């Protein structure tokens, strides 16, 4: 299991800042947001979606405080910004686990037992669709089709792809990942 350690360090720092901000760290965190906003031609609502994508790339999700800053700077209301966030599934407002567990729920994988794997994951980590386990290691997402039907059922954990998995194998693979 070679997890790309150094790539995750940056993400981890960002997460920590976003979750437990001391006043000083909070300031740094907001500076990042302002820097991202300034990388666009203007602080206009027309850049809302790319701005939020970039912010999410940095923080892995959209923390409430950051949303408030974006609302204020782009002069949009709470209902509007959440309207956009809830429209696009890739925007998250809660902190995800360290790894995104994308379980393929396409037709082939479904037939070959994806639901049983989902049940197993629920049993082991107590996480359903869109949920994060208690230790914040995984966030489970169901994907429509990941285009690897030949290896059904399959899943992508973080950046690694696993084909022809089964309930037992799932747990084994999952055990390779640690916080």
């Amino acid at each position, binding site marked *: 299991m070679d997890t790309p350690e150094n790539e995750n360090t940056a993400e981890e720092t960002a997460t920590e800042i976003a979750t437990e901000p001391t006043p000083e760290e909070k300031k740094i965190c907001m500076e990042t947001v302002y820097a991202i906003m300034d990388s666009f031609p203007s602080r206009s609502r027309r850049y809302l979606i790319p701005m939020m994508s970039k912010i999410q790339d940095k923080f892995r999700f959209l923390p409430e405080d950051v949303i408030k800053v974006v609302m204020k700077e782009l002069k949009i209301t709470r209902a509007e910004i959440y*309207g956009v966030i809830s*429209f696009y599934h890739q925007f998250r407002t809660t902190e995800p686990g360290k790894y995104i567990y994308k379980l393929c729920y396409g037709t082939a994988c479904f037939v070959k037992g994806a639901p049983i794997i989902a049940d197993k994951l629920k049993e082991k980590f107590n996480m359903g669709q869109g949920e994060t386990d208690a230790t914040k290691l995984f966030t489970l997402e169901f994907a429509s089709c990941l285009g690897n039907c030949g290896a059904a059922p399959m899943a992508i954990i973080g950046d690694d792809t696993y084909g022809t998995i089964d309930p037992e194998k799932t747990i084994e693979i999952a055990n390779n990942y640690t916080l």
Partner: protein
Amino acid sequence: MSTVVKKAINFTLNGEPVTAPEGTVILDAAKRKGVFISNLCSSPKLKPFAACRTCMVETVVDGKKELVYSCTHPVSEGMEVKTETEETDRYNKACLEMLLVEHPLDCPICDKSGVCPLQDNTDALSLYNGRFEIQRRNEPSIKTNPIIEFYLNRCIMCGMCVRICDETQGVQALDYHKRGYKISIGTANEEPLDCEFCGQCVTICPTGALMDLTSQARGLASMFTETETTCNFCSWGCTIKLETKKGQLVRIEGDETFDVGINEGNLCAKGRFGHGMVQNENRLQTPLMNVGGEFKEIGWDEAIRTISERITTTVNRSGPESLAAIGGETLTNEENFLFQKLYREVIGSNQVTNLNHLRAPYINTFQQQCIDSGIVSKPITELEEADVVLMFNTDIPSEYPVAGNSIRKGAIYTGTDILIANPRNVEFRHESRMEVRMTYKPESDAAVANRISRILIEKNLIDTAKAQATLPNYDAFVQSLAKYTSQYTEEATGVSDATLIQAAERLGRNADRFILIGNDVVETGQGEAILSALLNMSLLLHIGGEGSVNIYPPREHCNSQGVNDMGMVPETLPGYQPTHLNQKNLVADLWKNCSQGAIKMLFIAGEDPCHSGKHASMVRDGLQTVPFLVVQDMYMTETARMADIILPTSSYAEKEGTFTNMSRHVQRVAPAVLPEGQSRPDFEIFGDLAQALGKPFTHTSVREVQKEIENAAPSYKGTFPGKKSAQWIPTESGSQPEFAIVEEEAVETSSQDYPMKLITNNHMFHIGSYSHYAKALVDIGPECVAEISYEDSQSMNINSGDTIRIKSETDFLDVPVTVTDRTPPGVVYLPKNWVNVPVNKLRNGHQGLIPVSINKQG
């Protein structure tokens, strides 16, 4: 009219030739022609949207056939439009049929039943037997706020509420959330609604997915009895529908019928949800007499007899001028007319006034000067066609919320440019391309207006030669502007000269200009200088500029205009005719004259000067000293508690008459319910008093009094009974165009002890102190909260939610505080509507903004 003229387009509709202005969508053109096209999501107030997909029509342009949605497709030259063809019906039906799969048919308990576009369209398309399996949603209704209920099972995703909240109200509290099957309308994360509670979404919702929780009855709203009348809160004068069921006032709705009233069915929180003050258990039920400090219930006969006897004795003993009266800014024109008639003709006293006049007698002068200068001002219905609107020291969403609706509409459809001059950074969201914000230092209002005048002249933005030739005191006026150099003004107001130049340039261009002045100018203590400065600026534009200038005097309550028109002022008779009673003006200094004994009897109709008077201790002293005090009111106010006799009066929903709004529209007030308890309309009370005094009035009905008014005040001719909401036009105008040169008073420099300034005005959900009797308004605006700036909160270590003590020279108040960016540093903002937070005690006669200090409590 806007200065841009639209081209006429000729096309045919079902074979008939039709003409419509360029840019009109097919649906609107057809509607005007009386041709029905099924649709669910279009409103003349909103931008085209095409969500429901049920308004398809067939068009042929240059021989090419096309199926288009009529609510978004504009007409074009030579277009042939066909409605209800076999093909379009098939499409329209299919879309509606799919909506009906989910929509619950709980019509008997739905507020929209009978006035439901979904019902109408289903019927119009003869959709009686659906082909699909019914799949109803069954989600619980959301009642997380006290006013508006969300029952989303009925929602058809037309987006009308989202759009009206955004385009008309500028609030954007609602939006679409999620997507696909899970799509819903609402607030972010279904949080409780936090908005202006205008309720526009409730009125516009075609299906009853949004409901009025304050309504006293559920379902079949079409069966309620509707009475069209005029709102009794602010002076904008919206037309409302009072809906009653079995003698109970159930709710208030806007009337969206074309050409009814001035507000296009738009209403604000007060107007829509303030009906709780009509049928209320706290209303005064019987006349009361103060017997040794306690109020004893008495009959009407006894009350009228006692008062008339007292009047006769007082007249005999101290002369008629020792009797004074305060007219009501919430009484109808007819009532105020009779009130002054009672005083002038029956009693023989000229000592009549009203609180608005008592506080700011210069407003009537300002109005007269405008008329004399030829600035008559158009009906306010044309505000939405303005090219430029200047909001001068008015927080529109709180003061005239419905004006905001018209301005926003203008910004979208006419391209209105918006100029905002205010000491506070007030919120006003709109879609205009141009907004100039002049956030000036408190009390420097006049300097802003005067500097704009100077720029207009200096930069030749207007025809100065013409102004000089027409206006007699032009040179004196130019001289009076000498001190407003760019440097001086920038220092005095804190607004950059570039901003003021921008504003002046916009005003100078050929345009229809509307200037709305807030009642806050009166609070500054410089009202006269500010109104004169604005008048002079308008006069320059009127004489030297192209287009029109429309400027309206600041008026606060529903009939603040009418009470003055009807002669409830010592200077003039109804219609501003000169008075013949040559008496000393004792009411100019009413409270002092009460205290010092010159006034022996005071009659107050529908006012609470104890709370709203600007000199709290003096008012109290005057009311306590005056030997005989009669108060007519709906409620036991603080003033009523000091009265010798209290007469219970009817509310606006229980009487007939007219109100005149701040732009002089005379509009009908009609009774919808029977008077509460033994209360009676002021109209009848004045009649009874005249009779008891031996000089009965000759009229027998409201209509006859209206005829009398027409004779006394010629400008009111043809405005009654007010159903058409016509504006009264002065019989004579433009006779004497002249600048009013009033020197600005020196602003007090802030003292060490009281370094901050207190700005106070009406809260968004309240007006005066009477809106507090409406439970719904208290539910949404429960607490008086002060506002301070972020900068001050930092330097004083105060956070939102803390309690602060606001201390002036005379008194102090403890109130919770919130930190906002609306309020500039050095300013505390406090709404004035709470009886338990008597802001005027802090003022106690102080003329300008009150110098205060604040510190954190506890």
